[in-house]
């Protein structure tokens, strides 16, 4: 399993040479690939406070540790494909990596993918807040298990 940085580097390379339209198409492909919640998480969604309140559209995130391995589970409203695609990328990057590594998720991927310019200042700010949220979640997991 490649580490978080290697996975993100590969994704960055996928985006790098695309024009704006192709970048958005690839982002939407990632959004389509985010698996729906299992019934278990669907049920937990209603009882746990997993809503990302700083996010503009309904986003529910679980930053979990399974035997010290990170797992990012997310539910993003279909009307927010940008957030959905970006969360899918973050989930791929941290999957099964040690939680301490997931907590150090690089925060410059938007720029390196060339998405910051495609999305503009305010949307990019929202996605950077999402990275911060995921890092914080895994940092808490790392602290709990150390």
């Amino acid at each position, binding site marked *: 399993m490649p580490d978080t940085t290697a996975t993100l580097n590969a994704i960055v390379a996928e985006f790098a040479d695309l024009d*704006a*339209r192709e970048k*958005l*198409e690839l*982002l*939407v492909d990632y*959004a389509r690939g985010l698996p729906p919640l299992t019934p278990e998480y669907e049920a937990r969604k209603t009882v746990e406070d997993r809503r990302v*309140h*700083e*996010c*503009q*559209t*309904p986003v529910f995130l679980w930053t979990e540790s399974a035997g010290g391995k990170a797992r990012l589970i997310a539910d993003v409203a279909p*009307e*927010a*494909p*940008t*957030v959905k*695609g970006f969360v899918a990328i973050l989930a791929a990057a941290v999957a099964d990596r040690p939680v301490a590594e997931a907590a150090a998720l690089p925060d410059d991927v938007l720029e390196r993918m060339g998405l910051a*310019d*495609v*999305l*503009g*200042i*305010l*949307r990019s*700010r*929202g996605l950077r*807040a999402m990275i911060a949220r995921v890092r914080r979640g895994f940092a808490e997991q790392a602290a709990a298990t150390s």
Partner: protein
Amino acid sequence: MANDVHPEVLVSTEWVADHLSDPAVRVVESDEDRALYTLGHVPGAVEIDWAVDLQDQITRDYIDRAAFERLCAAKGISNDTTVVFYGDKNNWWACYAFWVFKLYGHERCRIMNGGRKRWELDGRPWSTDRVDYPPASYVAPEQDGSIRALRDEVLKHCKAGRQLLDVRSPEEYRGERMHMPDYPNEGAIRGGHIPGALNVPWPLNCNDDGTFKPVKELEKLYVKELRLKRRSPTIAYCRIGERSSLTWFVLTYLLGFANVKNYDGSWLEWGNAVRMPIAKGAATGGPAAALPPSPAVSA
């Protein structure tokens, strides 16, 4: 009685479906989440993004006249094209793009009533085809300042006690929160509202299906209940100017208000600027107090 109402600017999804291959019509999608266009758009529609296409990326302003001409030309829009805007979020950004097109004097602008939501509810098809049109030629005049309010003008307007509408949620108006419920704080340092502004949250203009309320109901709200005068200069603002574009559209085109400006700097400018007067708390008395508690004010 309104003397300058323009109901023809509002077109139905059916009208749009009937004009998809009309060369005189260009359908334009403008969204909060621009990947929605990529996910599926009205067949043949082009995308114009408020943040990347319409705003200058260096100065906090709109693109200049030459850039607007290049944008229209690239999207296959000529001066005589009928441009139909639609989008997500109750057409906020569609109204915003419509307003920017009016800044540059584009004559034939329309809004597809209900936007993406109504198109979906009507079971109409989405397309993922890449859309390109042959470049058109476009000549734009300089910006029309008569529909755009800048900060100094808003300050004078406020001091003169003229019609000023704050279309944000009551929580934002009262200064309890500096962004929409569930939205990130996009950077206003102070909360509250411009003194004298009436709080008329934008959802009061809309039905659940994303369409505008019937003109009679809108008239009842703005003219009868709020007692706004159609001929008095009016300024609308929100946080970054998109929700107030919707109210600007309603007042100007559906209700025939003669002189309405959108303050696009809105709270993000006012709440950060030095020495701007700010009021906090609920409106005391006045027509705003008579407003019913607004349902669904969260975005």
